[in-house]
């Protein structure tokens, strides 16, 4: 292969592979984050105080 062909191939492959990896890995990360099971049972999650404010007040932390 000529030097020009190698340069063209390497440049294009690098750009395409990098963009594919960058976008697809980000999809994988976001997907894993959204599908990660939250701790506790369904009942525990339902009864857990929602929001930082109520939780903080319950623990006696001043507003």
């Amino acid at each position, binding site marked *: 292969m000529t030097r020009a062909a190698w340069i*063209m191939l390497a440049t*294009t492959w690098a750009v395409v592979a990098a963009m594919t990896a960058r976008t697809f890995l980000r999809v994988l990360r976001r997907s894993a984050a959204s599908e990660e099971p939250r701790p506790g049972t369904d009942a525990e999650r339902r009864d857990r105080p929602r929001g930082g404010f109520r939780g903080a007040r319950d623990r006696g932390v001043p507003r």
Partner: protein
Amino acid sequence: MSQPAHWGSRIGLVLAMAGNAVGLGNFLRFPAQAAANGGGAFLIPYLVSFVLMGLPLLWVEWAIGRHGGQYGHHSTPGLLDRLGRQWWLKYVGVLGLFTNLTVAAYYCYIESWTLAYVWHSLTGTFREHAPTEFFPAYLGITEGSVVAWPAQAVFWFVFTVALNAWLLSRGLERGIELAAKIGMPLLLAFAALLAVRGLLLEPGDPGVVESPLTGLNFVWEPRLSGLASPTTWLAAAGQIFFTLSVGMGSIHCYAAYLRRNQDIALNAASAGWLNEFVEVVLGGSLLIPIATAYLGLQAVQAATAGGSGFELGFLTLPTLFANWGAFAPVAGALWFGLLFFAGITSSLAMGQPIVAFLEDELEVPKRRAVAAWGGATLALGAVCVCLYPGGAFDEFDFWSGTVALVVFALGEILIFGWIFGMDRGWVEITRGADLAVPAAFRWIIKYVTPVFIAAVLLGALVQPAGEWSDALGQLLRGGGWPWSPASVAGKVLHAGDADYRWFADGRPTADLVQDATRTLLLAVFLGLGGLVRYAWRRRMQEAP
């Protein structure tokens, strides 16, 4: 309206969208187009087209789909109807039904060839029969006849349509998504395996006459003079257009199953780049390098001069694999298997919009909707099968698989940018986005992409025979425009067909088949338009 359905997982969605885009063209058309249009230099207009036309169209189609999906629509008549108050918007969407239905008819036929070739590779048919003899016999082509009755091809075609229908009937998550989750990784694995094996061939191996790197050089050696030619730019833009499956209505349909705030910016970009990876990295490393190793560069140059690797893929490669000894049947099965997976993930995407239209707009139950799609695909496909020698297949490919896509894409981008409006459009594209879409795309979508698509359409309409500069010179000298027989105008005018007639010696000619096929396609389009009109009238009457 049908029950709201959604994608089971984000990975499934991206793989289904990428599977929709990855098709046979990634492996058969791209390398031949690159080699015929400037080699490595082709990649410059190709990537420019991807950024200025491909990505914007992907985002627009995903946005149109997700927007309309919130109103219970999953096919383009309803999706486009929701973009404005104009009564005619839904009729632009008819193009999205037309392309999916008619392209599926001949695409499923090609898909069935790949399945048949997997079978024949494994059973060793190509050890006894050369594919150059096998293929015409398989298609039922006989000298001087415009009609074919190929029993074996019909069997595989019916089997393929039935397989597609079965998967569609299983629904979004258990059918389409599952097929993509299985098919795409297998496709990548098969392609990578064959590429490594092919590129490691050396002169001295059985049957090898030249290094596969010579073939790779043929694809990648930049011939910069090609960059000045409109032909190269049009070829690159056209390749981007067809490889991404934009302008069909299938992306809209898949995106319509998204939730309101689900990301589209990152998902669309990811599916688009995944398709580019399969095309540029894997597609460019298979067909031409392997063929060059066994046939020599000159033969490959001659075979791909027209910009299609179809002949090499179906007629030549099965013979070449025979040199791989005990691995030959497996290699053949891997090659045609990957083409099959590339095909079925695309054909499912063509079936779903039709099924969704029948379900959403005409309240047809899913199983009956799938059966209707299967029946229509078989009926239209029968025309392609039985009139293949007369050119019916090529007519379907040209009018449905080429012209209609570009017309629809131009229509939808203008509607999105100018009727729906870029203010609302931009909100739609960026809502819930996991990727910061550069603000420049707001202007690119409104101004640059429509110009790009219009140039592709104009190029297809008036493409000259030979170089554009020569044709312009001839026009300026008063010699008229030399229409290419492959242009839209050339097809309509039957350019280059000096002996145009419907019958010769009392027997039908290819001209008759071509004109009859065009009439059929027009009738299908009008019929779908009538169905849309009926569906909307019915809804108006039922509205309280």
